[in-house]
């Protein structure tokens, strides 16, 4: 009698099991097996552009992708109505960035400020990820060189070596959530020549910047570059502070910026910012970037 009951209930259980084996359980079993297989989930889009404003981000163009950037700064806002509050003047940097591999990128640029050429190498050392590899931050290494070619009749001694300066930056960033990203960058600058013996050839700085997305395609950015004290004494230099507004449309990123730096390469904006926010020595400007897939691999990546 007891056996019968057990069997009866067994039958009922099996039948119920059968009834429950609807498509939702199929999907559930798929989801379960997907869960266990895991994989590494890399964080993408920590920043939209290669620059927060002046500061380079951990981002680099993808392998085989060429990025063209125009960085434009008008004159100082406090220069008066006669100069249309700075809009009569302009400083420009044209840059090309290229991804050699998914981790390695190189770039060249030319600034009108002191007719400066620059070049850089950026390597993505660590990538923020979750899943099998849990990495809280992304880290990129940046090494850059600048060389100004402006003629100064009063400085005939300026040879190629003296015109060159170097930067090394460790870019550390975290995307906290879909809207908020933050970056910190210890910086080392080396100038082959400095104005007086009171000034250091080797300078240290700490840069920090971040973005807050306000819509899916827009963000507000800010960055601050803190130059450690008593390194530049012969002239008044200020810490570079910038605010920006990113607008992304397809392959373009458009950034409207306000900054107290006129130069747009590290050795200029970190170590040689002459403008002071309090005096209204602010430069309004914009960065526009456009990316192009130029190699066959980049064009046919899906069929790999």
């Amino acid at each position: 009698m007891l056996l019968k009951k057990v069997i009866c209930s067994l039958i009922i259980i099996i039948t119920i099991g059968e009834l429950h084996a609807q498509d939702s359980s199929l999907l559930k079993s798929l989801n379960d097996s997907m869960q266990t297989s895991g994989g590494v989930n890399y964080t993408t889009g920590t920043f939209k552009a290669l620059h927060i404003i002046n500061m380079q981000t951990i981002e680099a163009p993808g392998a085989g992708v060429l990025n063209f950037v125009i960085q434009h700064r008008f004159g100082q806002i406090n220069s008066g109505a006669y100069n249309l509050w700075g809009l009569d003047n302009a400083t420009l940097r044209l840059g090309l960035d290229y991804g050699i591999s998914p981790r390695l990128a190189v770039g060249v640029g030319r600034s009108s400020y002191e007719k400066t050429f620059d070049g850089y190498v950026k390597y993505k050392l660590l990538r923020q990820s979750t899943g099998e590899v849990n990495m809280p931050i992304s880290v990129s290494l940046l090494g850059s060189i600048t060389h100004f070619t402006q003629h100064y009749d009063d400085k005939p001694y300026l040879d190629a070596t003296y015109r060159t300066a170097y930067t090394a930056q460790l870019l550390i960033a975290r995307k906290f959530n879909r809207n908020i990203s933050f970056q910190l960058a210890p910086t080392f600058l080396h100038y082959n020549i400095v104005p007086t013996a009171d000034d250091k050839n080797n300078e240290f700085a700490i840069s920090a910047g971040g973005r807050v997305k306000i819509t899916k395609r827009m963000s507000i950015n800010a960055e601050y570059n803190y130059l450690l004290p008593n390194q530049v004494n012969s002239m008044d230099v200020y810490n570079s502070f910038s605010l920006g507004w990113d607008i992304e449309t397809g392959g373009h990123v458009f950034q409207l910026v306000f900054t107290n730096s006129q130069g747009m390469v590290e050795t200029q904006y970190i170590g040689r910012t002459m403008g002071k926010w309090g005096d209204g020595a602010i430069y309004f400007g914009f960065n526009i970037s456009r990316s192009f897939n130029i190699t066959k691999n980049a064009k046919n990546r899906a069929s790999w």
Partner: protein
Amino acid sequence: MKKIFIFLILLINCHWAHSQQYMTRSGFIGFYGKTPMEDIRAENKQVYAIIDAGHKEMAITLLLKGFIFTKELMQEHFNENYVESDKYPKASFTGTYTINVPPGSDSIYKVTIKGNMTLHNVTRPVEIPATLQMQQGRLIGNAEFKMKPEDYNISIPSIVRDKIAKEMNVVVKLDCNTK
């Protein structure tokens, strides 16, 4: 008592026979859309699918991040701005088809699959023409159909709307082994 036992055994057998399941973890789903401005090609080769040949049911699921685009930037925008894969990481389908595909023959059966597609937190009923074929103990499924991003609440800004095809052509290739 005996009868009950026999019935039980039959029932269990019946259960087994009916739930002959075929599964893959490396199915293929690609979607394509071309306009003179942008040629979109995205392919995912890590599609999970299960087909229950007995019940004529199936389920498919994939991680949206698994779609590899020809343009890396497009892939980033797809995840960040369009399907929002951080919020809704998966797309899935569950459905049934009508024609029995017997294990013995290897002819190709045209079937219609009815079910629900879930993408970007929107679930819609869909009807997809497909083919199913048994081949050396494997169940092979192929399908091709069209999807509109707007149907799944994926908004495309007007400034780029004309550059992106109105409908995406979706290609599905599943090669499932017995589970």
